[in-house]
């Protein structure tokens, strides 16, 4: 569960909510009265507000600063240590997509924690679904030890066909990134030159494509 002090903002908050503060309102509020974590939260809120206006430097700072908090939230949700970084990646992508929903008059940490908690729950659910379908290692070894039988080649061919079809259904930008970087193994610079896209867009498209493919091939929506 996210920190209660960060999420206690039910309907009754309207009655006691302070007036919205602007980006420079830190100057007006006596910061010495705030705790260190509240000051850090306000700083991140100001960075995100600047990022909403297009400030790249503020954006990378707030995202870098968010990683530790995302990991902490995911840990509290019960995500295993080796899966924490998947939650971080998914949360960063959601933050990017939903950055216009952040209200700088409110807590950045509460906003981020809600997104991170949801992405952590999504990951736990998808792992749960996968665990139902997958066969336990020892059991698999006992019952399916001989994998290189006559059907193995057919299976590989079918898998490749499924992957090819899944790639074909990707949006054009994502398909292009997979083809250039994954299948043709071009460097980012070469792929950028051939497609006319910048390297950042190619990286994001590749990341999204891999997530989509992973979900589709594991039978998730």
């Amino acid at each position, binding site marked *: 569960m996210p920190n209660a002090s960060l999420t206690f903002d039910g309907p009754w908050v309207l009655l006691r909510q302070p007036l919205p503060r602007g980006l420079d309102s830190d100057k007006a509020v006596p910061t010495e009265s705030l705790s260190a974590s509240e000051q850090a939260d306000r700083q991140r809120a100001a960075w995100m507000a600047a990022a*909403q206006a297009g400030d790249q430097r503020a954006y*990378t700072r707030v995202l870098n600063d968010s990683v530790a908090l995302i990991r902490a939230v995911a840990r509290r949700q019960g995500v295993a240590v080796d899966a924490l970084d998947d939650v971080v990646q998914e949360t*960063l992508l959601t933050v990017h997509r939903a950055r216009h929903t952040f209200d700088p008059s409110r807590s950045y940490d509460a906003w981020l*924690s*809600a*997104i991170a908690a949801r992405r952590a729950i999504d990951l736990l659910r998808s792992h749960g679904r996968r665990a139902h379908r997958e066969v336990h290692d020892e059991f698999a070894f006992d019952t399916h030890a001989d994998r290189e039988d006559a059907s193995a080649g057919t299976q590989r061919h079918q898998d490749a066909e499924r992957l090819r079809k899944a790639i074909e259904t990707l949006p054009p930008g994502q398909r292009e990134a997979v083809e250039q970087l994954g299948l043709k193994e071009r460097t980012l610079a070469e792929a950028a030159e051939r497609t006319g896209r*910048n390297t950042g867009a190619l990286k994001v498209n590749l990341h999204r494509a891999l997530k989509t493919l992973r979900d589709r091939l594991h039978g998730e929506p």
Partner: protein
Amino acid sequence: MSDAARHEALIDALGAELTPVRRLLPPWRRALGWLAIVAVIAVGLFVRYGAGTMLHRWSVAPDLGLAACGAVITAVTAALASFMLAVPGRSRSWAWVPVPSALLWIGASGMGCLRAHIPGMPVMDLHGANDCLIFIISFSIPLSGLMVWLLRRACPLRPVLTAVLVGLASASASASLLEICHNFDATASDLLMHTVAVGIVVGANALMGGRLLSKA
């Protein structure tokens, strides 16, 4: 690639494609926009049917007035709760806000079936009750569609719960609009049809709206 490097690469990539964004309006203002559309439809119905029949029903049977107030308040609170829940970081307790008014709406409608009939007012048969069902569903479809479209611009982290509230807001708004041209006394069949209509609208939203919002 180590995890720290993966995060750094993603952050760099996201930073590189950063563009300025228009901040989302506060939820209460977005809810007001949707309610304004409902109000425009209500004005149209008042122009067509007038307020005389509605006020006569309410003066003779105050429970019907109470039920109508409950429906209107439910529409307002459920719409506000939907827009609130679509923004990350807002409390889940917003989902409870429409509950008291919904109970008033349902309770007062049920009470209407227990008292004596309003003199001179027709009692609804099954055919008329079907018309109520069609009215509520017909108005709920565009109202739900509009709200889902508006909510997709936000980031609903609880898509099904948000969609249930969308259904409740649309159904209660439609029931409120029906009140303007509902020239019948309350009966059990009428109440049953209203309940079925609201159930269909809320259920359909939970199924379809939830899917649409989860892809937002």
